[in-house]
């Protein structure tokens, strides 16, 4: 077995955390996300900064990827690549669940819908690709907030407006909900964004277990629930789909 260098592994973990769209993280966020002491993390960041791989914002003091790294090649997962890889799985999800399927990624402090498969019932539906959904009330948003530290940061910094009567507006209660999401591996939205509409979502992870997006289904509460709980069959379908897409990404070259 070849020997590995721990500090390089840690530096790589920092870079991966910062990789992506417009991501800025503070020292303590980074330290807790990769599970290191602040002092150690600061050392890593200073070295990376010297190399040009990381830059520090003068006003907020937060860190982001440096120009040097971007020059090495844009290695982040392209959302259109994500859609292309998710296509067959999300078709199958819509078909097996009988509900519409969505793929969302973090974008400008919200969830950007990058793929949408119609509910398979021949009713008139409009393609929602490009639409934005809130982070704090939707199943897709909760998944992102639970698994992606940047999304978590953003949602906790923002207000929690009540969109419906059922929206969770207390940050502490929301945070508790995220713990549950992490422990069971999926999130739900029961009329918290749209009255009478429920959603289930699960995380899509790349081969480094970094969250790259969320996949889920949305439908009428009456169809999605039975006796006050979501159909286990639907939860399983969503999680199967998320696992399949994740597996597909793991086989890729990024």
């Amino acid at each position: 077995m070849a020997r590995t260098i721990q500090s390089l592994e840690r530096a790589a973990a920092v870079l991966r955390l910062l990789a992506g769209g417009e991501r800025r993280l503070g020292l303590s966020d980074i330290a807790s996300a990769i599970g290191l002491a602040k002092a150690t993390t600061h050392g890593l960041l200073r070295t990376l900064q010297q190399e040009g791989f990381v830059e520090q914002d003068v006003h907020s003091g937060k860190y982001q990827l440096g120009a040097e790294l971007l020059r090495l090649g844009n290695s982040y997962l392209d959302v259109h690549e994500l859609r292309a890889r998710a296509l067959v799985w999300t078709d199958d999800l819509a078909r097996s669940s009988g509900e519409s399927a969505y793929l969302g990624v973090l974008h400008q402090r919200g969830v950007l819908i990058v793929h949408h498969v119609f509910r398979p019932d021949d009713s008139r539906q409009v393609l929602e690709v490009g639409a934005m959904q809130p982070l704090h009330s939707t199943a897709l948003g909760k998944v992102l907030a639970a698994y992606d530290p940047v999304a978590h940061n953003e949602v906790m910094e923002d207000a929690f407006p009540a969109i419906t009567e059922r929206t969770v507006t207390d940050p502490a209660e929301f945070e508790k909900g995220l713990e549950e999401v992490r422990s069971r591996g999926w999130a739900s939205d029961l009329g918290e964004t749209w009255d009478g509409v429920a959603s289930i979502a699960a995380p899509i992870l790349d081969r480094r277990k970094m969250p790259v997006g969320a996949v889920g289904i949305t439908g009428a509460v009456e169809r999605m629930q039975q006796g006050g709980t979501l159909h286990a069959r639907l939860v399983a379908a969503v999680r199967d789909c998320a696992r399949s897409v994740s597996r597909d990404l793991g086989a890729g070259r990024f």
Partner: protein
Amino acid sequence: MTDRHDADLSSAPRQYVAAIDQGTTSSRCIVFDHDGRIVSVDQKEHEQIFPKPGWVEHNAAEIWTNVQEVVAGALEKAQITKEQVQAIGITNQRETTLLWDRTTGEPVHNAIVWQDTRTDALCRELGRNVGQDRFRRETGLPLSSYFAGPKIRWLLDNVEGLRERAERGDILFGTMDSWVIWNLTGGPDGGVHVTDVTNASRTLLMSLRSMEWDERICASIGVPTAVLPEIRSSAEVYGTAKGGALDGVPVASALGDQQAALFGQTCFEVGEAKSTYGTGTFLLMNTGNEAINSYAGLITTVGYRIGDQAPVYALEGSIAVTGALVQWMRDQMGLINSAAEIETLALTVEDNGGAYFVPAFSGLFAPYWRSDARGVIAGLTRYVTKAHIARAVLEATAWQTREIVDAMKKDSGVELTALKVDGGMTSNNLLMQNISDFLDAPVVRPMVSETTCLGAAYAAGLAVGFWSGTDELRANWRRAAEWNPQMDPAARDREYQFWLKAVQRTMGWLDETD
């Protein structure tokens, strides 16, 4: 992709239909359930043999071995027995030509693949003073190296002693459907030697109106009729499988791949059309029971024929370079890292910045057929960035679709109501929107992307009564996404004029050579 979410309420074992897709790069078998959902897939690639520039061959024995393996593999993955398979259907790469010995079952030569251009000179010679339209009225096709007839002639001329053996009746010809069916049904031991109307319509040897081999044309091209298979419908029981994983299962459909996609997309009404966006693109429109001669550069072909019902014809237009242009941007230009990134790059700008890209890399195909044309990027100014070029790349596919749809309208007088799309490029949202905008018609993507296999399964299932009729199949069709036109009509007309001007600028680039 095994799926067992649905509760199985009845105690009887569930019933399925299997489809074999003998394609250009691989052979696949997919098992479908009664709802048209995929239960399992197995796939195996085969070798591409390039003996000389422009020549492409396949080893037919390897292909038959692979077909047997993927059939067994798909049944195993589905965890079903052959008793649960009601029928097996076949779809295949079209025009690829094979001759084999009827007694031994041995191919006499590698199969000559549809892309192979070795018969270019022969086709020009066969055109005599008339040119490439010599057999068009009878067959619907131009004389081109794609089609099977001239490939048979080449084999008879170039394999030692083959013509004599063929004339004695020892040799059988088939496209890959015939080869697979003959072997499935017993091979030298009583295998049935048949082809379906769609595959026969790509040989240049079949009369489109009578659905029979045209003896005059066979004589002109130099193909003895003794080698030819019996022409049957696309959906009927040709025989039952003998031995192997499917022993005893009815072999009940054959359709060329593009026709199978038309069937799988349930384009059963006049004016319904499908377009498959891959490396190149094939657009087929159902024209009903009438074979429409094309004067606008399209091909007239058989769409399908169900049992003893009247045949359904189609107009076909193909675009040589669609996905291939995106690959070129990635591999030759290095402007993107993956094909999907073309959309990301294109979306960084609002429009094409005045740039138009006509990818006439090997001349212009439908509806122009100009071999002297070469690609151009027109309308360049200093304002134009790589993102504008990315837009122009996607728009090129959309405008070429529009040109084929216009040609179809001109030939048939039928207005396209909606375009059903499939193939890898349907994951490109911007492209799908562009196509809808440029056609001024809805573009719809079905939920089962494997429309080719689905079409073969549907035809086989109809033949054995697994499905009651085309209405039931249509009810199985599910819309996964729909794009509607959002473009201002004046802008559409203006940009189409620019596109047509750019196309004009590709022509006459090469000096007239033969």
